[in-house]
């Protein structure tokens, strides 16, 4: 199981110039594409912002699910909490975007800490069920607390102030897109560092063999709690961004469907490959949008078939295609750099 992204240093040693250049190009590409999209998307910019938010969301799940092996279908809980927290703050206290962002992130992280402490000693399907049950409970709470959340009607009346006091959220969604992109980049750097740190490596071990990790003295439960809370914080930011850029929060942000969809995105792209979240989220958002325009009734068929195909034929997700392409290019360019 070659995990090229996990060992950039090795690649640099193997193939000096070509390998390094290619790695650098690979890292820069997604951001360049994002900037290009900004200038060319026109009326589709909103879709772009939504895709960026989903990337952040999927990345958060990758930390918990992909790296640490916490099988959860309840990630939407943190997304929804972040969204409602940011929205409620904007409506009742202050409409400053940064404040809402921080608030949403912190509240989600705390909730992650609390629920993680409660359930992380369980494993497998039991853990799965716990995450689902918590999500469902949270949904009911949000539905009941109508005066705060708007209940079934949703939280409306969110009017955001300027970002950093300078940039107004415009009709076209330009500010929203760039704002989201910057936040995504920030979290991406954090995720990148975490995954490459000793802490991140230990997660790999914990996922594969928790008993052995415990045997060598790793505080497994604490590490899981830490990564779960971090992942919750990230998802909370995604939710807050959603609330701020669409200026609306619906109960669907706490829906099981959303949890399922983000897991779909992650696996499509490839887990344990930070960029997997990028590829998967963009592909899903674009395919779903496109397919539902061609035939609103049957887009599920296309997405479902795609899922089945990816699982059966492309185990490591679509990123493995990128890997294969990269290997080919390296072989063509760098000679000894290829494996």
């Amino acid at each position, binding site marked *: 199981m070659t995990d090229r992204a996990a060992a950039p240093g090795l690649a640099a040693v193997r193939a000096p110039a070509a390998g390094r250049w290619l790695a650098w190009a690979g890292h820069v590409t997604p951001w360049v594409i994002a900037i290009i999209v900004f200038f060319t998307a026109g009326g589709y910019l909103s879709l772009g912002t939504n895709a960026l938010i989903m990337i952040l969301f999927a990345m958060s799940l990758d930390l918990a*699910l992909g790296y640490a092996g916490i*099988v959860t*279908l309840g990630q939407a809980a943190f997304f929804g909490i972040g969204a409602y927290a940011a929205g409620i703050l904007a409506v009742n206290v202050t409409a400053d975007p940064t404040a809402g962002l921080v608030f949403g992130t912190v509240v989600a992280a705390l909730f992650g800490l609390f629920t993680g402490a*409660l*359930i992380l*000693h*369980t*494993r*497998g*399907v*039991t853990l*799965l*069920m*716990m995450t*689902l*049950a*918590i999500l*469902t*409970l949270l949904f*009911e*709470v949000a539905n*009941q607390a109508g005066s705060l959340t708007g209940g079934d009607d949703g939280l409306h009346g969110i009017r955001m102030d300027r970002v950093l006091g300078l940039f107004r959220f415009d009709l076209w969604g330009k500010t929203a897109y760039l704002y989201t992109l910057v936040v995504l980049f920030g979290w991406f750097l954090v995720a990148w560092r975490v995954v490459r740190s000793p802490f991140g490596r230990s997660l790999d071990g914990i996922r594969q063999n928790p008993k052995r990790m415990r045997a060598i003295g790793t505080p497994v439960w604490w590490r899981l709690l830490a990564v779960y809370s971090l992942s919750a914080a990230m998802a909370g930011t995604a939710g807050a961004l959603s609330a701020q850029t669409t200026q609306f929060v619906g109960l669907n942000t706490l829906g*099981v*469907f959303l949890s*399922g969809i983000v*897991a*779909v995105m992650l*696996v499509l792209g490839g*887990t344990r490959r930070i960029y997997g979240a990028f590829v998967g989220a963009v592909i899903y958002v674009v395919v779903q949008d496109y397919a539902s325009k061609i035939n609103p*009734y*049957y*887009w*599920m*068929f296309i*997405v*479902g*078939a*795609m*899922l*089945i195909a*990816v*699982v*059966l034929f492309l*185990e490591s997700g679509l990123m493995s295609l990128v890997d294969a392409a990269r290997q080919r290019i390296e072989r063509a360019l760098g000679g000894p750099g290829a494996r």
Partner: protein
Amino acid sequence: MSFGLTILLDGLAFGMILFLISVGLTITMGLMRVVNLAHGAFAMVGGYVAAVLTADGVNYFLAVLAGMIAAGIAGGVCEVTLYRPLYRKGELAQVLLTIGLAFVAIAALTLVFGTNYKTVALPDYLESPVDLGFRVYPAYRLFLIAVGLALAAVLWVVIDGSLFGARLRAAVDNRKMAISVGIDVNWLFTITFVGGSALAGLGGAIGAGMLPLEAFYPLRYLVLFLVVVIVGGEGSFKGSFLAALALGIIDTLGKYFLPEFAAFVLYSVVILLLLWRPHGLVPPKAVA
């Protein structure tokens, strides 16, 4: 007193529906260790076949049987083509493939049957209320309870009492050992999956009076099915029977005494139960 009995009957009936549909999932999840989120799709297939046949005047029980067979066949086909490769891949791959299968099923059923709700026509004697002496009670619910108990009894005999059942239990408890002892695990899996899907079809067809049939059925009730299986303990039909009963009664009690917060009650209880017994009420013996 009669009020208490009513609550018991209501809870039992609801529990039986859950058991009927989920027991197939328990067995497949326990045996093949496959998280099958498309289970509801097989239930739906059974239900739709029965609905179409009863709409054409076919006898209710024949229609239900046809539904079971259709669901079983669908299960067999899927097992051989889609699920077999899944056994080696992790939980996540299974979750995702079966979600994809559920999506495909939903889209396919929408294509064939449209977006409206369908029901399975009950024979007259099941439609009308029954006089129980202390009150009048829907015959359909009594029927559900009867079928659920009968099924539990049959499964007990088959799984605990027969050679097939013994092989099944062996393969669940310790697959490698079962293979080395000469049990053809592949064949066993296929048969079991067909059985599990047929049971799902039975549940879908008989339960259509409480869980109406529509294309979105597999996802609408998914969490409910999963709850029964996981709380009960994978692979244990006794566990799923107990879990279904317990959840059915607790949910009913919640609705009677805390009507607005019934959903809270159910899921809080699920969380508490799982904290108390993480491997389910009747845990699998080989926890590996």
